């Protein structure tokens, strides 16, 4: 039987691993290669690595670090952050990154998404969407690491990305990021119902119950979480952790 995937989502700033709250307030978590080694031992389903400052610093992905991490990953690895060209996607694939997430560049250049899907296969390309709720309760797509509002409706945008052929859609709730208050089920439900493409829920996971809820109520194919897998206890002590096979079985 196919099990919904549970994916630690790790944020990079420079060479360090950080965790944000609502896309701000980055807290240092540790060395990324070391964290990946631990996640590897815990046999995680998959790993997602997002470089959250690459776009704003207008630089290339940190290939050296990504290569070090890929060398330790005996599970599927996704990378996102400042991917704007086919050449970069090719380079990342050759290093052992099988999924490349495109966010800001996908919004400004739909052709890049289409071309990447045609060239590398749908399953290699993930479209990442950052969503924030207005105070009237309307959902809007934000880009550039949550700094620019496109005012676009995320459901319509997800439908468009699905038509371009992306293999997965990562839906990240800016409002829930780092809060551990649960996924935005209403948002996930809408997007998951609108597209056949597998949806990865991100933003807000604070417990296995939250994960279960996203799977059973919003019908997502996978759930990603940051804080849940790097912090422990109410004081948020850094502790790399992951559910046991028995716990995952019950999801």
């Amino acid at each position, binding site marked *: 039987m196919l099990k919904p*995937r549970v994916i630690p989502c790790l944020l990079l700033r420079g060479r360090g691993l950080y965790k944000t709250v609502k896309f701000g307030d980055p807290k240092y978590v540790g060395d990324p290669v070391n964290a990946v080694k631990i996640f590897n031992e815990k046999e995680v389903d998959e790993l997602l690595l997002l470089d959250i400052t690459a776009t704003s610093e207008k630089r290339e992905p940190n290939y050296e670090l990504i290569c070090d991490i890929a060398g330790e990953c005996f599970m599927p690895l996704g990378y996102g952050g400042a991917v704007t060209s086919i050449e970069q996607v090719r380079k990342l694939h050759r290093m052992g990154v099988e999924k490349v997430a495109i966010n800001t560049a996908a919004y400004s250049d739909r052709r890049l998404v289409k071309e990447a899907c045609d060239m590398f296969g749908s*399953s290699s390309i993930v479209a990442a969407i950052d969503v924030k709720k207005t105070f009237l309760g309307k959902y809007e797509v934000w880009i550039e690491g949550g700094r620019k509002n496109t005012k676009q409706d995320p459901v319509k945008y997800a439908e468009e990305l699905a038509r371009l052929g992306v293999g997965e859609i990562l839906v990240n709730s800016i409002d829930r990021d780092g809060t551990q208050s649960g996924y935005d089920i209403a948002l996930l439900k809408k997007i998951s119902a609108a597209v056949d493409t597998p949806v990865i829920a991100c933003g807000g996971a604070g417990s296995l119950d939250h994960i279960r809820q996203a799977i059973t109520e919003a019908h997502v194919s996978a759930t990603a979480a940051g804080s849940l897998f790097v912090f422990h206890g109410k004081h948020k002590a850094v502790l790399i952790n992951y559910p046991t096979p028995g716990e995952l079985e019950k999801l």
Partner: protein
Amino acid sequence: MIAVVDYDTGNVGSVLNMLKKVGAKAQVSRDPEVLGHADKLVLPGVGAFDEAIGNLHRFGLWDVLNELVLEQRKPILGVCLGAQLMARTSEEGHRPGFGWLNARIARFRAPEGQQLRVPHMGWNTVTPDKSGGGIFDKVPQPMRFYFVHSFHMVADEPDLQLSTTTYGYPFASALASRNIISMQFHPEKSHKYGLQVYRNFVESFESC
């Protein structure tokens, strides 16, 4: 030495990382001489069927691989799209595959009245149907492997089927014949399960 065939359509990095992990001497190459000197071959692959076939022709690898696999009988492991290329035909494309295995590639179709999200993506159970030259020996049970695919293999000779997996319905998740193993899943991305498969391929697999 294990040669990982480089035709610009594969996750060569992941395969190389896993081969290194099991202590194999491995090299990524599209040089016929290097491939000819290799003890065993891995044919990776991610992407579209016709484009992959096109690349194999463009790099002059088509005849080379036919010679090494059919005449010299070098052990070869095909992974994902690399496995599908070993079949005769694919519903994904128009160009013929290698046809080393009497099999074809079909699209996943939802059984009546059911919804089936495609691609089939994630960890699924693999149940062996035969020994396949011991390729699954010592793999922890139940065997779980990572899959990503929208098309699957269909064996036209029942004896070919090495393992079965269920997604919507049971399908052939691996095939094996003589010196050829084709795996739809990604052992290079499947933790201890895949590690053992690569170890078996490198250390003991000759033929089945």
